[in-house]
């Protein structure tokens, strides 16, 4: 019943959005040839840079695997990625929930992490046959275990309800955390795989006399930009579903 409802709602949203989509396509069709050529050039350059950067990835991965084998630790599972598109936002103004155009038929399951271009953006909470709902990390009911990349310090990053801010409470005022530190998923709890970038620390407020520092961070991926996201389809299979 829930599956059917998710699909029906997404389908209706698609119907309402159809005229707008058609308009977008019409505008795109008349986009000038020059603009498209520029775009191709830019993408080619970007592709070349990215290719250059990934050349060493294969060797690094196998090297890493060898070291891990030496250390007798389990090899990281390579994640399978499903490309999905954000079709609409939930109308509930208190939540940060998006509707994606991939569902159970594409291997999407509850609890799977959702990645944006520059890092983690959320997780799947409701799955229909061909659509699903994902809650973003900034939703004020969402929290995820993170780690400071520089020092390995573990913490919980909570959503603030504002689209560009995460908060970390309950860090001792003497903790080593600085503005600009990158927060990555720590993998604790088994929900999110280890090592995806989440946010960057934007300010650390230490009030003298308070036991805890107040840390704010900005998500690495702009959560309100872009339409394409990646759903990590393998990582959450071993974890049981707990409420986000």
């Amino acid at each position: 019943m829930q599956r059917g409802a998710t699909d029906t709602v997404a389908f209706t949203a698609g119907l309402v959005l159809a005229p707008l989509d058609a308009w977008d396509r019409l505008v795109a069709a008349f986009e000038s040839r020059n603009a498209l050529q520029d775009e191709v050039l830019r993408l080619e350059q970007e592709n070349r840079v990215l290719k250059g950067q990934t050349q060493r990835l294969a060797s690094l991965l196998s090297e890493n695997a060898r070291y891990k084998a030496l250390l007798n630790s389990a090899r990281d599972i390579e994640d399978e990625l499903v490309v999905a598109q954000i079709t609409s936002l939930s109308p509930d103004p208190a939540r940060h929930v998006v509707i994606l155009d991939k569902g159970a038929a594409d291997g999407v399951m509850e609890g799977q992490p959702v990645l944006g271009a520059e890092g983690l953006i959320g997780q799947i909470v409701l799955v229909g046959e061909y659509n699903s709902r994902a809650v973003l990390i900034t939703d004020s009911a969402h929290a995820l275990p993170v780690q400071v990349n520089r020092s390995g310090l573990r913490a919980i990053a909570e959503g603030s309800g504002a689209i560009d801010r995460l908060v970390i409470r309950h860090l001792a005022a003497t903790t080593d955390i600085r503005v600009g530190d990158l927060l990555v998923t720590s993998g604790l709890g088994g929900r999110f795989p280890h090592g995806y970038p989440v946010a960057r620390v934007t300010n650390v407020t230490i009030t003298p006399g308070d036991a805890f520092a107040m840390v704010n961070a900005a998500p690495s991926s702009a959560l309100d930009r872009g339409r394409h996201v990646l759903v990590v389809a393998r990582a959450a299979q071993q974890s049981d579903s707990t409420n986000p």
Partner: protein
Amino acid sequence: MNRAHASWVIYLSLVAALLVMFIPVPLEWRILRPEIAALTLFYWTLALPHRVGVATACTLGLLQDLIEGAPIGLSSPGLMLATLVLLFSYQRVRQYDVAQQSFVMLVLLLLSSGVEQWLRNGIDIPVIPLSGMLALLLSMLCWIPVRSILRHSRRHYEVY
């Protein structure tokens, strides 16, 4: 004993009002979305209290929750309570002019969203921030066009 006539207009208008929820708006502007569905419900309760009432309010609330992906039953109790209040007082509210009626609508919306906030608080879902009140004020202004559109269609299709 009177039989319903053209009651499809009622349900069509409620569905159309629900579709308004799908219109895409920027993330920060969702808070300003007026409660067209609730206003439509209140209009029909006011005009045809023998056709539309607490049961319709309950169904509408369930559909709203499905669309929002909220826990089922989050918005029904508030809408049902507001409809009930309107059912007790429709004869008086009908005598008011449009401006006065829109204030009544504001009170009804405050009542229904108040109950919803209370439920959200109770089951630990994020509550709507205080700026959500702006949406209620906007809804109050929407009462005038909503009322005139529905009134025209009611008379044109002779809904009773």
